[in-house]
């Protein structure tokens, strides 16, 4: 993916990618915290409720991403991309 960025921005983009992965890990902590409900103790139905909600959110996001994928692909301008090694 850093192939897509101008070479002087490649490290920045790589850093941003890991940064957002780190954010994802923190988000995981927040979602996990939510399975504990208000009292902090997890129950089976609370966990399944949260998992179901985020399951649908993720599938909804997937549909949007797939619908947009053609446009985003065209932004990548792969035909004029020079390979640098």
């Amino acid at each position, binding site marked *: 993916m850093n192939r897509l960025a101008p070479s002087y921005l490649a490290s920045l*983009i790589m850093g941003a990618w*890991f940064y*957002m992965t780190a954010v*994802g890990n923190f988000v995981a902590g927040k979602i996990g915290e939510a399975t504990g409900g208000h009292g902090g103790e*997890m129950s089976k139905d609370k966990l399944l409720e949260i998992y*179901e909600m985020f399951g*649908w959110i993720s599938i909804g996001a997937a549909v949007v991403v*797939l619908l947009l994928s*053609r446009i985003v692909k065209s932004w990548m301008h792969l035909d004029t991309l020079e390979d640098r*090694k």
Partner: protein
Amino acid sequence: MKDMALWNEGDWIASIAVVVLAIFLAIGGKIAIQKEPEFAGHPKGLYMLFFAEMWERFSYYGMRALLIFYLTKHWLFSDGNANLIYGAYTSLVYITPVLGGYLADRYLGQRKAVLFGGLLLAIGHSLMAVEGTGGQTDPAINVFWGALAFIIVGSGFLKANISVMVGQLYSLTDVRRDGAYTVFYMGINLGAAVGTILVGYLGETIGWGYGFGLAGIGMLAGLVVFVLGKSALNGAGEAPAPLAKSREWTLYGIGLAAVAVCWALVQYQSVIQNLLVVSGLGLLGYVLYETFKLDKEPRERMFAILFLISLNPLFWGLFEQAGGSMSLFTDRYVDRGATPASLFQSINPIYIILLAPLFAALWQWLGKRGKEPSAPAKFGLALAQMGLANLVLVWGAEAYGLAAMTPVIFVFLYYLLATTGELCLSPVGFRQ
């Protein structure tokens, strides 16, 4: 030693892991003592890095598989807080390699960075074994926070840099580079699977300290491999410019100061949250500023990158439930026989070892026919599978009733879909 006739599932899984580890170590020993500079078409240095990283991942994932249980059962955090601490810890583990990579590229060189990181990790894992009496009022919990901080900073110095060293063994045009990373990637997953099983087994069946102690021993083994195998590197990973002793020690001092900072930070998860938001906005602002200076085509490419990057938190936010809430669920509500719950964290790396070659072949096959999904489409597929993983678990658990223990097959299906999702995503991002 327990009579073999009395062995339960957990005993068998751990024994198989020991055998697999022994086989790989025997092969490693053969490569180490052989005179030829290459083995199976790759330089000895690759195998040295393979085993060093295998042991590092052994300790990291082994410890991580136990962490959520250590937090809830030993330090007696509520489930909610334990998940938050777990997430804060792993998020810091992902951020520090960016800084460690920078310091190594600019000043320290990768080899010394890996060595220093490995030392910090060995200290961290050993400190994890200091149990105290448990509960949050026990002063020993400060040692535990320190252990996490050492591992966070140690990963920062080691993780990205050891991957970079793999590439440095080859010239830029060497066709073996991709193959080398595939071998290295397998070492990571082998270490993750075996480490999770053995550390988790000891930690849950004998005692926390035994599990974490084994993780510490594993990290020390990795360091020994790395130090003894130095000659196989042929000068890879040295500092970019001659490094004065005073500057070198300043860098180590920065590392130790970072341990102190992380020791404080990891105890205050809301501070980490605020820092993530503020620096994330700063980073976004800077990237946008650079983006709008570009011409139309490179600018649109940056938009494509930003679009993909922005989806990361959702995918990983769900994927990383594995060692947190999913582990607690497996422990309490899954019919898992006598298998310790932490061992289920080995399913993902095992699936990766089995499925990564299939996915690589699939993309290649589709690519030849001009039908390989675009990077954004792969990201969409990854999210769809991660969402489906969640729903399959929910439907399975509900079909058998909330009062009944959920059959273990649904845990396997959950991790299968999460892994195939991950495999759609990983070629889009960066191979690490």
